[in-house]
């Protein structure tokens, strides 16, 4: 899961944690001795550990925090390589669950890259997820196509904000989460090579856009006409794409 700037959990990652908890519960219901665990994995600066804490408050059993100055500014490829290496240290893993898109960058690519890194099947943008006998079934509807996919574990699953309703942490679990262990891993611990640590893309420049300075009209009965005038005056009616 990914943390936001203030160290809280990216909200759709709460759905990912919920899915992981439900998968564990389904496996446990089928076999009480299966010994499944939910591990919260996050990569980011020291504050990112808060995201793992938040997941543990929801019920994750422990945390893994990938944290290294060499990973600051990691692009998609480096992020995926580091997360995949961390997942390998936890083998055997049945499922990796991610959110469909992080709020900041909206890449929606980490799930695909993890599937590619691990060589696992991928069930993405899942609107519903279920588990039976080591097989995960997921339904998705994107770009006007509705699909039902099935994958035998291990698999990578990405979920949306409507996949489930994340459970609220109860006081008992908030207290218990403080005692749950978090393993911190550096790039060296993960055995990442120089090549894997080298971003393939770089930000050349980042400029703050000028503060928006909206032209605000209070409707006195002519607001609609002024809206139309604005579009016409700025030549915004052209329909060259239709």
């Amino acid at each position, binding site marked *: 899961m990914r943390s936001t700037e203030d160290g809280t959990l990216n909200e759709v990652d709460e759905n990912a944690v919920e899915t992981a908890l439900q998968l564990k519960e389904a496996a446990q219901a089928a076999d009480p001795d299966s010994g499944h665990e939910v591990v919260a994995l996050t990569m980011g600066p020291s504050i990112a550990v808060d995201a793992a804490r938040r997941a543990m408050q929801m019920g994750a059993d422990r945390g893994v925090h990938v944290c290294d100055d060499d990973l600051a500014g990691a692009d998609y490829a480096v992020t995926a390589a580091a997360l995949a290496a961390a997942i390998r240290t936890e083998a055997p893993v049945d499922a990796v669950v991610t959110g469909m898109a992080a709020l900041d960058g909206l890449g929606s690519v980490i799930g695909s890259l993890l599937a590619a890194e691990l060589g696992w099947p991928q069930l993405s943008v899942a609107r519903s997820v279920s588990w039976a006998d080591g097989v995960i079934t997921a339904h998705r509807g*994107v770009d006007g196509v509705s699909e039902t996919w099935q994958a035998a574990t291990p698999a990578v699953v990405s979920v949306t904000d409507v996949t489930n309703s994340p459970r609220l942490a109860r006081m008992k679990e908030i207290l218990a989460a403080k005692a749950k262990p978090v393993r911190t891993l550096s790039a060296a611990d993960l055995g990442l090579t120089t090549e894997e640590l080298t971003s393939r893309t770089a930000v050349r420049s980042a400029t703050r856009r000028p503060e928006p300075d*909206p032209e605000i009209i209070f409707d006195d009965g002519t607001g609609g006409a002024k809206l139309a005038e604005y579009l*016409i005056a700025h030549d915004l009616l052209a329909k060259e794409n239709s």
Partner: protein
Amino acid sequence: MTGVLVPLGSDAAAGLRPATREVLTLARDLGEVTALAHTTPTADLLAELGSYGVTRVLTTPLPEPASAAAVAAQAVVSAVTEVSCAVVLFTSSFTTKEIAAHTAHRLGAGLLIDVGGVHLDGGRLVGGKRAFGGTWETVCEVRTEVAVATVTPNAVMARPAPQPTVPELRDLPAEIEVPPRLELLERTVADHSGDTRPSLAEAAIVVSGGRGTFGDFEPVEELADALGAAVGTTRDCVEEGWLPPEAMVGQTGTTVAPRVYIGAGISGAPHHIGGMAGAGTVVAVNIDDEAPLVQLADFAVIGDLSSVLADAVEALREHGG
């Protein structure tokens, strides 16, 4: 000359979509363009590709499950190797972002997602993108020999080539491994042939209504139709059952980057803004002048959306004659 590959995906079957024409326009400015199809292109499609300056069309069938990103990506990788392309350009969608990720992984290529334009600088692909809810403009470069990028719709105006080409047609031999342990149980493709409005993801103008419509989308739809626009909405309205999930714009909905985005009765939550911050011009209609979408807009009308939008439609009709 730089080789540029444009995968057509399922587009090849139905004729080129506007977003694909835009990407072909960008690709032609970068170098020599090869298109990749999975069914033999019709004469019409070839002529259209030729009018956009495509010099070569590779065709390779995909094994089932053809809609798995890992399968489609392998065909793209084969094409890149076959004609040694340095740049792969996709139109941006959920589906293509996944294929682009798998492609970049296999090629060891740098990946740019949702860029609003690309150019080459010293042989490197450079792309611009808005980040953090549209408050920052970033320029990113790819440092690997091969670059993979997805381009948002409406990034450029589609322009046919000054000199049409006659694309060379070639079968692409591709060995594609099917991903392990994966099975497609069911697939249905929505029939959009009867649609009177452009698709939300690609429309040049989007008119969205939020909770402030109180479920009455008639004014929103009328304005959309007067402008030839697509209709969008917020998650709250989808949850209310007012519009289907396909109409949702935002972090967990569709990302749009139209020339004009008109949001009526929408507060402008970060989740919503994240999905429309790439818009060229933003217009807001809201009773609350403090609403975040009003603050972010270029132009805003403070008032009741039902009368404001209806008046706007009337003014547009008068203008259009």
